[in-house]
């Protein structure tokens, strides 16, 4: 498996999925449909969008492990760990 191709595919799946959901949420907002439906679709669409890069980094770990590419594995795992630590610290240290 080539890392570039896998990253491209994960990006594409994330982009298509989130753009479709974002368009649905935008349309339902414009048509003033059921507010519960609109906000749920909006949450899921933005969630899908911003979790795509996490999925890309995670896929890099899987690809490098299956290719036995130790260097890329260490680098990708470091990035994912720091991303998760930043996320946890951001959530715990941010003033309310």
């Amino acid at each position, binding site marked *: 498996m080539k890392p570039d191709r896998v990253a491209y595919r994960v990006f594409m799946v994330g*982009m298509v999925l989130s753009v479709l959901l974002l368009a649905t*949420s935008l349309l339902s907002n414009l048509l003033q449909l059921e507010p519960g439906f609109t906000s749920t679709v909006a949450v899921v669409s933005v*969630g899908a969008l911003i979790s795509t890069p996490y999925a890309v980094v995670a896929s890099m770990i899987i690809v490098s492990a299956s290719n036995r590419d130790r260097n890329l594995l260490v680098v990708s795992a470091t*990035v994912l760990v720091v991303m998760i630590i930043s996320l946890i610290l951001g959530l715990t240290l941010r003033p309310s």
Partner: protein
Amino acid sequence: MRRLRCAEGLALLCLAVSIPVTINAVFGEFDRFKPGDSAITPLLSVELLAMAVLAGFLGALMGLGGGIVMVPMLTSVFNLPIHEAVAISIVGVVATGISGGSAYLRQKMTNIRLAMFLETSTTLGALTGALLALMIPGTFLYLIFSAFAFYVSISQVRSIKLETKKIRLDGFKKATPDRLSRVLNLSGSYFDKNLGTDVGYVVRGSIHGWLVSFIAGMGSGLLGIGGGFIKVSAMNLFMNVPLKASIATSKFMISVTAATSAMVYFLYGAVRLSYAAPVAIGTTLGASLGAKVMNRLKVKWLKVVFASITCYLGYNMLRKGLLLSAGINLP
């Protein structure tokens, strides 16, 4: 192949569904996600979409996030408070990163190994910056980053002829890689559509570039400034990577860096979702367009536009720095 695609799709769908479910379980309420959310008018949606297309286009063209266009416009044209503008803009930055990043990956311009290597320093820098921001005031850092932006701007203008010459004479390939670059296999190549030729390059100065990327990350964690221009400059000026490959690689990195901050804003319910939808759709469209155009442009023009934007960024930081440190209000 088909199984792989299904697995990727399923993984993303699971992620997308699990986030709101987990948050609902942790925070116990969905209302958190609707800070002042209300239905927006069709005209407002079109205006937001147009602004976002421009931001996404510029972002993909220059390897930047696009916040430079979005934040001032959201505050001045759409009258949003700065914290809401930043939260919406960061979602837009993730969207341009994904759209531009995927387009450059398809064009085989992104150096994914280099991106992941530099991402270790950027994410570490952002984390350090965010922690330092709780302890030290960032006033003087605006002046330091402003000086760096002016230096980059001047260096880019001065290197216009050099880069064109290096591409013509295969100069990017003739450098000697450092040890880290050799071990991690960081060197690469891309096809330049404007010149109709393959451009190979050997990455050197890996430690130098890693440190500059760390500073870029710190700047983004401490001051919230986009690290895009520093990342592009770190690769192009210090690591012997051609400008087009630097832009493509920076775009990939931006999606990863911005996703970390965006997730924090999102989980806190700080993103105004009704505004985020047109912004994200617009930046996605703009970034796809920008990525199509970039590889067809002459390096000379890319450098001129990049230097101008960096100069503008430097001036903005200088203005903020002088206002906060000495009370001097520049026009």
